């Protein structure tokens, strides 16, 4: 493989690295198969029992390591259940006793039978458990055969680990700073590899298709861009030089910008904006604080509900929210209540398949449909006020009656919690997301019922422009600077100002420095974004005046097309901040 080749996947964990590949190949275990005499059957059964014990001890060790990193392994615990299952052991023993098979053969035969059973089941969640059984049995077989289980414990330092997929146990063996990057064929935005890589701050690309793994040899150079979700295998010297330069530029810029992290985002003429972080995991909070986050503007709670079969109860949710508010205290954290639908349907809520999930049962609509879920979550969030400063944010509202319902339930639950002896719950703020054109247009009617607005620009743009940005045919129409979108934001800010409530923006638009003057001048008071963008935004805002930002906005609001607006905004920002935009946007 001497030709440079590029492959795309899901951007799982940010960062750019150039390093040699380390391919985790699953050794094909050749199972010894031989007949045994009846007299040695008890000894063979004993050998199998010892292999189970050894495997259990090894997995216990991994589990302890996982607890150290603070990653609780629900997925992992299933493997213990299977390891202790009487069916597995009893049937393997019977294969030894009655069929006269050696232990390895006996166990392998039982695994095959179980895998056939699992494969015949329609429920995908149950069917997937087959791989857990396979993983456990493989470890027992390796113990029987005196083989070391393959894993990442022995991965050389500084490599990019490449694999078909990585089990939670294998990921748990990784230490911060040990490997340079991770790329897998399997996995998605919510899989355990993604979650663990992000918390360990290891750049990662998952779900990378294209057959690149088959021919990849150890030591081949790979460029991995975890921010863009791509890998370059065997890059040519020019590409390497380009990446080296880009990486060192980025590092230099980051170091320089980090000086701005602790400073307030206040313009030269005294208008300040709160800079908040969008976060999904408690482990990301230190990163947010280091980059100058002044609180959490969006904490998505879906994570608690994903990759599991049951629903988290009030106590489990409280424990999770408590961890967050305690770490961020004295700053506050905005928790968005469950926003499911679209591609995010957990196994705990088997819902009807929808032909058009983006327009389906999501956010507040789900809460209306399943009010008990909403109540449990509210109780947990309100109770978390004992340990810090949570705020509640309701997603996907489109009618006034939804807001009134959500507010009424919130008030009821809050009064219950206060009455149960927790006066702090009374100060928990209640806000709604403005992410449908309907909500933006009636913001004035909604405002009296809420304590704050948070504009979710990703969905607001998608719904306003009727564009799915992931659709290659029409994605080019997705434009945050479209005049319709700017007018929506303007109107929401006006409604907020009149009602005396804060208006924030938490979509990707907030983190792109090109938009900073526009949002500032439209009247946005809080920007919530990925932590890595905060220092640059602070630097730009501190170098600006509200007067020049307002002048830009009044110019662009007279322009009729998104294209004209973009040219004008980019031109202005680039000439005002040539160095910053040169480095971020490159030459393109």
């Amino acid at each position, binding site marked *: 493989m001497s030709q440079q080749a590029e492959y795309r996947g899901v951007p799982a964990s940010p960062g750019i690295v150039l390093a040699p590949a380390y391919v985790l190949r699953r050794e094909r275990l050749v199972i010894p198969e031989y007949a045994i005499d009846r007299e040695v059957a008890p000894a063979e059964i004993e050998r199998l029992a010892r292999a189970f014990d050894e495997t259990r001890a090894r997995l216990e060790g991994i589990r302890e390591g996982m607890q150290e990193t603070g990653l609780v392994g629900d997925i992992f615990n*299933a493997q213990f*259940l*299977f390891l202790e*299952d*009487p*069916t*597995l052991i*009893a049937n393997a023993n019977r294969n030894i006793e009655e069929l006269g098979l050696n232990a390895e053969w006996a166990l392998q035969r039982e695994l095959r039978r*179980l895998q056939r*059973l*699992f494969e*015949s*089941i*329609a*429920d995908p*969640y*149950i069917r997937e*458990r087959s791989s857990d*059984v396979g993983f456990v049995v493989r470890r027992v077989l390796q113990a029987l055969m005196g083989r070391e289980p393959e894993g990442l414990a022995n991965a050389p330092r500084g490599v990019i680990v490449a694999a078909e997929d990585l089990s939670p146990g294998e990921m748990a063996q990784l230490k911060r700073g040990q490997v340079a990057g991770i790329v897998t064929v399997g996995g998605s935005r919510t899989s355990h590899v993604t979650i663990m890589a992000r918390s360990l701050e290891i750049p990662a690309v998952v779900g990378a298709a294209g057959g690149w793994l088959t021919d990849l040899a150890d030591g081949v150079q790979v460029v991995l861009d975890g921010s863009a979700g791509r890998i370059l295998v065997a890059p040519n010297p020019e590409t390497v030089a380009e990446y080296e330069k880009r990486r060192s530029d980025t590092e230099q810029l980051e170091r320089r910008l980090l000086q701005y992290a602790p400073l307030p985002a206040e313009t030269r003429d005294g208008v300040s904006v709160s800079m908040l972080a969008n976060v999904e995991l408690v482990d990301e909070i230190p990163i947010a604080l280091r980059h100058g986050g002044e609180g959490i503007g969006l904490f998505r709670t879906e994570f608690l509900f994903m990759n599991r*079969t*049951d*629903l988290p*109860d009030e106590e489990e949710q409280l424990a999770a929210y408590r961890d967050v508010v305690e770490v961020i205290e004295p700053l506050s954290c905005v928790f968005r209540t469950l926003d499911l639908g679209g591609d995010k349907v957990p*196994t*705990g809520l*088997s819902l009807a398949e929808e032909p058009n999930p983006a327009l389906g049962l999501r956010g507040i609509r789900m809460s209306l449909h399943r009010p*008990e*879920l909403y109540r*449990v979550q509210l109780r947990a969030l309100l109770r978390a006020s004992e340990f810090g400063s949570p705020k509640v944010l309701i997603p996907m509202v489109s009618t006034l009656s939804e807001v009134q319902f959500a507010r009424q339930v919130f008030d009821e639950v809050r009064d219950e919690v206060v009455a149960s002896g927790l006066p702090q719950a009374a100060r928990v703020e209640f806000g709604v997301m403005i992410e449908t054109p309907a909500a933006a247009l009636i913001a004035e009617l909604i405002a009296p019922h809420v304590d704050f607005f948070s504009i979710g620009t990703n969905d607001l743009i998608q719904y306003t422009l009727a564009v799915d940005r992931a659709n290659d045919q029409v994605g080019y129409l997705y434009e945050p600077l479209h005049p319709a979108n700017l007018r929506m934001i303007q109107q929401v800010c006006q409604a907020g100002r009149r009602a005396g409530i804060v208006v924030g923006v938490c979509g990707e638009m907030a983190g792109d420095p090109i938009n900073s003057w526009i949002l500032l001048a439209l009247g946005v008071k809080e920007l919530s974004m990925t932590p890595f963008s905060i220092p640059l935004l602070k630097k730009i805002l501190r170098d600006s005046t509200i007067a020049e930002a307002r002048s830009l906005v009044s110019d662009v609001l007279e322009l009729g097309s998104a294209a004209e607006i973009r040219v004008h905004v980019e031109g202005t920002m680039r000439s005002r901040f040539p160095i910053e935009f040169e480095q971020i946007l490159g030459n393109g």
Partner: protein
Amino acid sequence: MTCEVEVKICNQLGLHLRAAAALAKLAESFESEVLVRKDGTTANGKSVIALVTLNAPLGTSLEIVAEGPDAEQAVSDLKELVETRFGEAQ
């Protein structure tokens, strides 16, 4: 002593991993042998794998059979577990 009872799976998710684990754990606490039957298939009530692979979604009828000194208690406790939806909200 042998006792037998028929139950219907009434939780949303059916006999999935967590429910099966709860059933197996309760069955394990009895001295009696516990079997769970669906149509012609019989599963060891103390085995999560056997229970999960029975493939029993919402609405499935199961027969729980216990054989041993505490069979009566086992059957009645297990029936209650299934009928209270394994403690799930739905």
